[in-house]
């Protein structure tokens, strides 16, 4: 269910020559469940997935955890056992049940007692956490009222002018939400993306990278271009919509403005690059393969592989490193954002926020204005 399967699916796009073929039959990736192959970190997964989110279920999980012995079952091994469930299901259960009784310092009653105490602590934390959730939610609502762009670029610019610096490159992680949710489905993510583009243009930032795990935006570029065009015409009027360029590093494609308007050679107000999980670890591994082949063909010296060389290659393949990364989810989850490119990137997210709102955007810019970067010093 994890990397391997995602890998298997992604390799479908891989042609023999290392060139990538767009598979049109796979447009149903924007299904009801959103990112299907991504396992979020524990705190983030709590807020996702409708049925996993109820109070009743939490209570069930905690009370049943008393009966689970996870001293020998670490999280990674459970994920592993999910991967090859059929192969060594028997062995994993055997190991855990053996050690449960035979471990030297196991005192069964002591163990059960601590388990119950832990469950009680969990309950208390759960109640505290519920209060915290409500507090954070109301805080976010107030912030939303305070910062409201009202589709007016002047207001956004006014907010930004107060800051002493803005990032030159901005990145954002977007996700496809379940279709039933507010702002869910393909429509939702397109709307979020185009809103973000409008804010970024109005704030005066020239580069924006939009990341989504499954690459839904990459597959629906026409719809995205139309959506951005519509949003920009709401902000700036249909007569003078700013030019924008959409770059997909993975397919090495650049698109300008709305479909059918052709290439516009005049200055673009913003360059939007679309990234997906494919640009992360897998690109680095592909690069390794290419370099290994070049080395064995004596076209490249092994000792020439330096950080600088890898950096230039990855800059070409994926793009520049962003200065600020916005995440519009409840708790920080980088979702496999290209690892090479988050070296000094500032992260910003709001606790328990689940929507792409202007308040998060402007507060992120504010945090960036206040931060001090000192490499090594």
């Amino acid at each position, binding site marked *: 269910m994890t990397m391997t399967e995602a890998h298997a699916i992604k390799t479908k796009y891989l042609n023999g020559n290392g060139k990538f073929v767009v598979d049109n039959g796979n447009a149903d990736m924007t299904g009801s469940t959103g990112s299907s192959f991504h396992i979020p970190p*524990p705190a983030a997964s709590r807020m996702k997935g409708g049925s996993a989110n109820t109070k009743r279920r939490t209570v069930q999980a905690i009370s049943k955890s008393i009966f689970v012995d996870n001293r020998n079952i670490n999280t990674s091994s459970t994920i592993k*056992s999910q991967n090859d469930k059929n192969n060594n299901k028997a062995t994993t259960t055997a190991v855990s049940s053996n050690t449960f009784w035979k471990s030297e310092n196991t005192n069964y009653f002591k163990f059960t007692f601590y388990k119950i105490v832990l469950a009680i602590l969990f309950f208390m934390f759960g109640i505290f956490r519920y209060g915290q959730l409500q507090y954070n939610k109301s805080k976010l609502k107030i912030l939303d009222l305070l910062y409201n762009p009202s589709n007016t670029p002047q207001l956004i610019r006014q907010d930004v002018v107060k800051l002493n610096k803005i990032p030159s490159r901005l990145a954002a992680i977007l996700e496809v939400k379940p279709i039933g949710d507010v702002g869910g489905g393909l429509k939702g993510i397109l709307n979020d993306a185009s809103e973000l583009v409008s804010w970024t243009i109005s704030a005066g930032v020239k580069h924006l990278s939009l990341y989504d795990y499954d690459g839904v935006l990459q597959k629906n570029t026409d719809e995205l271009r139309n959506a951005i065009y519509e949003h920009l015409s709401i902000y700036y009027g249909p007569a003078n919509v700013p030019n924008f360029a959409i770059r997909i590093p993975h397919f090495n494609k650049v698109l300008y403005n709305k479909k059918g308007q052709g290439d516009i050679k005049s200055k673009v107000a913003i360059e939007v690059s679309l990234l997906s999980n494919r640009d992360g670890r897998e690109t680095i591994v592909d690069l390794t393969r290419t370099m290994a082949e070049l080395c064995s063909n004596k076209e490249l010296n092994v000792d020439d*592989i330096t*950080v600088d060389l890898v950096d230039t290659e990855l800059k070409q393949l994926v793009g520049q490193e962003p200065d600020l990364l916005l995440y519009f989810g409840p708790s920080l989850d980088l979702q496999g954002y290209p*690892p090479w490119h988050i070296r000094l990137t500032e*992260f910003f997210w709001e606790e328990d926020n689940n929507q792409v709102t202007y308040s998060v955007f402007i507060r992120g810019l504010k945090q960036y204005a206040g931060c001090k970067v000192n490499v090594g010093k």
Partner: protein
Amino acid sequence: MIASVKRLVRGPLIRSTNYTIESSTHLFLYVFNQLHIVFMRIVPQSIRVWWQKFLQDIFIAILKVGPIPEHVSFIMDGNRRYAKSNNLPLKKGHEAGGFTLLTLVYICKKMGVKCVSAYAFSIENFNRSEEEVQTLMTLFNAKLEEFANRAQDYKDPLYGSKLRIIGDKRLLTPETRNKLKEVERLTQDGKDFTFYVCFPYTSRNDIQHAIYKNSKEYTEKKIKLNDINLNKFSEKMYLDEFSQKCDILIRTSGHRRLSDYMLWQSHQNSTIEFVPTLWPDFTFTQMCLIFFRWSFFTTIQMYNNDEGTSQYPWKTFMPNIPFMNKNHYEPLESLADPPVSVSILG
């Protein structure tokens, strides 16, 4: 009594001036901390120490029965700011940081964490003043020797841990390199716990090193091209079997960035915690609360993921109903024949 009241009144309760309250979690921590400090100032020393130890042991024992992270990582930021805010020389700040690290490593080991890694020195840190780099090196050597000695002493809680120093060692002087090798050799038999010290390390360097190693082995015909894939790639990285994932990454002193550390390990499904405290002020309580939070959410996540698998003993006794199992699909032909279809038109 009067003396204890005097002690209470004297000075600000929180030592560090950089403590900021950003969210309700921090508020909770702050209140907890304040109460604890007040309590600690009232009671006499002997009871204080006993009470602290008792609390720690109990809390560790409780946390131990829940899910435990496998790989915990620290970015130790804020040593110099700590020294500055307390009017101490820089060296004292670093020393305090080293002390905190060893304490926390000991607690992690006790809790059953398999691997702890810490960002001791970045390659970029060579840009600092010569004097500071020098003091850092000496301090570092001393701390490593202390750790190695303790890891060999069977009475010590750190006994049986393995120390690995990772990073681009070409940047060090030969003497230091030999010394590090010696320390590593002393502790190489440790099995149940590994402590990685990242000393001149950057994550980009780590990734580049893995690319280099893979390419080199391919040119020497040791591996095939198919062996360079997602899973095998990270085996070539510095952190051996722990390179795939870091469960909890803790960065102190409030900066919300990774600063070229554990990029590969923490950019998917790992919890990253940014704590506003400076590193020497980072205490057992704070770390345990982070672990507790992680443990809470992991319990729920595991329940949601593993429902219906072997985790829950009673599930094995449940009958396996075919159409309740979503992984099971029947072909159309295997369905029972429908009744005869008759049209009303005759």
